[in-house]
Every structure is written in C-alpha cells, then in structure tokens.
C-alpha cells in the first residue's frame, strides 16, 4: 500500500455540496497520496459520483476546500479551473467521445488546443497512446464504429493525452457488456501499476479489492468507513457497510 506521502496530491477538506435543499455531501475530508489508488464504493445516491465530479469542478460545492497538486479549486475563475483541469483526467460511464471527430482527433484535440502542441507532436502522442490501450489500428476509425470497450479505451487514451497527475474514473465499466469489462479494467490496472494516482467510483468489488490501496465506503453523504481493501471487505466494522456488501451477493 502506498502510504500518503508528505503532501497529498488530492486534498479535500470539510467539503459540502447541496442540490437545492438537499445536501448530498455533508463534510468530506479526504487526502489522496501520489500514486495511490482509491476505490470509492457505496449505494447509488450516497454521493460518491458527486464527490468525484467535485474534484475537477464539474460540480460546484458550497463549503470546504479542495486542492489538486497544490492548486486550489476556485469556481468562477476560468483560468484557475483550466490550470487545475489540466492535471485531472476523467473517464465517464458513458465514454463521451466526440462523435464528429475520428478516434485519433479525439485524442489530439485537447493537447493541441490547451497545451498548444503542434499537430505532428499531437499525432505521434495519440498514436502512442492508442497503441498503449491496444487500439493502434483504430486511429482513423470513427467512435460509432467501435465497441463500448474500445470506446472506453479511447476515452482513457484521450484523458492520458493531457498527462494528468490524477485520473478520475466514474463507474467506467457500468455501461459495458460483461464480456467487455475485462479489457477496460486491464488498462486501468496497468495505469495503477505505472504509478498513476487513481480515484475510481466502481461497482466492481473484485477489481477494487485487487487494485486499490484504499477503499472508501460512502453512505448518506459522508465517508462512513475507510481502509485497506482486505480490512474493509474482510472485516467491515459498521452495519451499513456490512449490509451494503451483503446486498451485492
């Protein structure tokens, strides 16, 4: 287990988030160390996806503080958001590839625009990243010609192209046919092995147990229980976690 080194790369303090009168995050404190792999589990509606989406500013929070790599998240400050988001990659449940761009152009778009890299540079990088996720021959294909698993792997390559220091995975296998889940998880596992800091909301408990350094169980907008996977899955301390784990079988 990668212990939290000196300064956490993701630092969340007393974070609160409301949708209208409904408070969905009720004070979250979480520090994630560089290279750490954190799985976030919990029932739907427990706030786990919302927490993940707060980290790159897709959701605004009302209270508390959040830092990534020493950069504070400031809503309404476009420049600060752009700076922060370059350090945080995200992969979505629904892939969200850009359907009007070829696979290669999907990967090349953001580095070209945001990091102002040249076309040849972007293309070489895109080809290398697609090869890394096992899709070297799909550079000129269109997203709708790919299977769900292939699309999700392109989405991973697209996120990696920005060279993020943290990767957020929001239920990235939930929309996949069961036989396609493995190919995506293998890529995520290889990222973990290479030292990428990962936060993943997941329903794949076996994967969470195998890959993560720490598991966070969320319940009713709070971190209810947290610890190494063997401990959390092996000897859950709270009735809520026990009940949640029992409901999965």
């Amino acid at each position, binding site marked *: 287990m990668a212990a939290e080194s000196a300064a956490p790369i993701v630092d969340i303090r007393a974070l609160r988030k409301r949708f209208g009168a409904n408070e969905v995050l009720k004070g979250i404190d979480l520090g994630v160390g560089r290279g750490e792999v954190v799985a976030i589990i919990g029932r739907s509606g427990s706030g786990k996806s919302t927490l993940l989406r707060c980290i*790159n*500013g*897709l959701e605004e929070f009302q209270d508390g503080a959040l830092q990534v790599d020493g950069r504070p998240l400031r809503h309404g400050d*476009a420049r600060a*958001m*752009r700076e922060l*988001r*370059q350090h*945080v*990659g*995200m992969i*979505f449940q*629904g892939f*969200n*590839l*850009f*359907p*009007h*761009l070829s696979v290669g152009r999907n990967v090349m*778009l*953001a580095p070209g*625009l*945001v990091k102002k890299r040249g076309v040849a540079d972007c293309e070489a990088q895109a080809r290398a990243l697609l090869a890394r996720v096992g899709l070297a021959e799909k550079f000129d294909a*269109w997203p709708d010609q790919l299977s769900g698993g292939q699309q999700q792997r392109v*989405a991973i390559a*697209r*996120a990696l192209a*920005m060279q993020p220091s943290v990767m*957020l995975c929001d239920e990235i296998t939930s929309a996949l046919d069961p036989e396609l889940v493995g190919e995506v998880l293998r890529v995520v596992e290889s990222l973990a092995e290479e030292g990428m800091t990962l936060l993943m909301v997941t329903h794949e408990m076996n994967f969470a147990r195998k890959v993560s350094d720490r598991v966070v169980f969320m319940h009713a907008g709070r971190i209810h229980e947290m610890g190494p996977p063997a401990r959390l899955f092996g000897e859950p301390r709270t009735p809520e976690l026990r009940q949640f784990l029992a409901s999965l079988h």
Partner: protein
Amino acid sequence: MVDFTLWDILRNLLLAMRWTAALSAAAFVGGGLVGLALLLARVAGGRATRAAVSAYVQVFQGTPLLMQLFLAYFGLALLGVDVPAWLAAGAALTLYTSAYLAEIWRGCLEAVPRGQWEAADSLALSFSEKLRHVVGPQALRIGVPPTVGFLVQVIKGTALASVIGFIELTKAGTMITNATFRPFTVYACVALMYFVLCWPVSLASRRLERSLRRGR
C-alpha cells in the same frame, strides 16, 4: 383593350421576383447574424442578458409578422421617421428571422448531450473552444433541417411585405391581375416562382446534411 401575352406576365413577375429574392437574402443574412449574436448573448451572458434575449424572442415569436411589418412601416412614420417600404420590410424580416433562428439554434445546442460538455470541460477546454470544436459542430449538424425549414418559411413570408406597398412577387402579381383580369394564370405563375425559389434551398439543405453527417 390591350392584350397581354403570357410572356408579358412572366417577364414582369420575374422582375419582381428579384425583389423577393433580395428581401429573402437580406432576412437570411441579417437575421442569421443578429440571431447568432442573440444566441451567443444567451449562452454566454449573465442572467439579465439571458432574460432580455428571451423577452426579445417571445415578442417576435408571439406577434404576427404582418403586425411587425405594419409597426415598422406606419409606426416609425408616426414618429416622424420616414422609412421607405423596402427598409421597413427588410428590418422587420431581419428581426423576425433573428428571433426564430436564435431559438432554433439554442435548441440545437441543448440537444447536444451534456456528456459532451462535461468531457470537454474535463479536458480543460475553454468556453469558446468547447463551442467551436465540440458542441458547435454537433449542433450544426442537428441544426441544418430546422434552419432551412424556417428559411423556406421566410421566403414565403416575404409575401406579407406586399401589404406595406413593397413591390415584390405577390404585390406584382396583384398589380398584373388588376391589369390583365387573368388571376388564375397570374397567381399560378406567382406560386411557381415561389417554388422555384424555395426548392433549391431545400435541395441544398439535403446535400449539406449529407456532407455534415461525417464531420471533417
């Protein structure tokens, strides 16, 4: 009594058709530019700007084009501003077109799935980059059929400019009928000419749709 040949009728209608075409073109271009400005104000502006654009759209969508033409022509005259019929017609059609196009295009932007905005956000794209490279091209593809459908309505809507004395196709048809007493022939020719104007627009739309199906 003077005898009018079919060619006399056609020739005079063709001359008037130029004005229908010019008025339509002015409404397309002017309405398109104003509509685009309204759209940008609505998606990028603050609460007050959005409300103002929304009110503008409601006013022009909620009143008949005929009344807008009357107000532009007679209303401004009442205020002592002497507006020629072509200017009043052009201005009224531009405003009318811009309101509809702004609303149609807003709908197209909103039809692009939220996930596309979020993916672009997570890749650190700025607002203008998102519009230009991610959401805009997809909205454009969605927007071609309703936009062209509306533009065909505008071409036909220019007929209303005849009531303020602007001599375009319909007004010319009425005048020629009064001289020739052959309303069926004249109005059949008028209808045919509207069709000749509208049909190529619809055809172009279908070709544009096809070429946009696969973004380049």
